């Protein structure tokens, strides 16, 4: 058993275990931190698969960005103390059976298919190659992604900055307040 296999099994256990903790934990803060370990383990998987640049991007964007964003979302949408943050789980048994059937089906399809193997060599993946690909074959998606990110930033800022009156449970909501007329 070489180092590659050892690293694969160690991090596979880490990834799947932390993902299971994330799904089944009652406390949403625990879920967020378990998701962090899952994403970090996946970055190690990418590095094992010769995708070093994807691994670094995963660490920067997911662990450094999206996870912090999720924690901010948790903080801004809870009242009181974090140790009381409980979330509801419904239909756990049917959902588990359904997800298990989907997973087993996927694994069965993966294992019964005869994939054409054409393994990548270690030296084939270079940053230069990725950059050239980005500016030749993937030029249009690259530009469109830039526009998409700009739109997402503007949209997120506009939506997060706008405030509307909260909906009252006892009385009917105001039909058209001064703020909603402006929108």
């Amino acid at each position: 058993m070489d180092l590659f296999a050892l690293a694969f099994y160690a991090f596979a256990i880490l990834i799947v275990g932390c993902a299971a903790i994330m799904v089944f934990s009652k406390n949403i803060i625990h879920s967020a931190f378990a998701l962090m370990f899952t994403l970090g383990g996946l970055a190690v998987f990418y590095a094992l698969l010769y995708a070093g640049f994807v691994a670094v991007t995963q660490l920067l964007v997911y662990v450094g960005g999206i996870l912090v964003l999720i924690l901010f979302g948790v903080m801004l949408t809870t009242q009181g103390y974090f140790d009381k943050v409980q979330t509801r789980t419904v239909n756990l048994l049917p959902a588990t059976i359904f997800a298990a059937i989907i997973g087993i089906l996927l694994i069965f399809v993966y294992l019964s298919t005869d994939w054409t193997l054409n393994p990548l060599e270690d030296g084939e993946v270079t940053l230069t190659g990725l950059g050239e690909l980005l500016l030749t074959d993937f030029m249009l998606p690259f530009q469109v992604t830039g526009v998409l990110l700009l739109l997402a930033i503007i949209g997120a800022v506009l939506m997060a900055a706008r405030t509307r009156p909260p909906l009252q449970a006892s009385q009917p909501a105001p039909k058209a307040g001064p703020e909603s007329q402006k929108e």
Partner: protein
Amino acid sequence: MVLPEWLAEPGLNHFLVVGAILFSLGLLAVISRRNIIMVLMGIELILNSANLNFVAFSRYGSLSLDGHMIALFVIIIAAAEAAVALAIVLNIYNRFGSVDVEQISELKD
């Protein structure tokens, strides 16, 4: 201790199986949890399992470097999605005072 060959040398199938397990766990989070942020985390898990498949196919299959590029684009789009989705979640919380998806049942008052 002598391990069988399929266990001793992880190949394409091993990574695909991990991806499938991650996908079903993400699906489970999406359909069984009632907190919007938990649903978002499940979606992130599903996107990551797709990414793992892309990178595994680019390593072992004939996808070569294209798989890495697609994985990068998926990461970028997931970042944009998370930003917009959390802005929507904040609006929903201000409006309804709750982030439970079953209480958010009306589109317009």
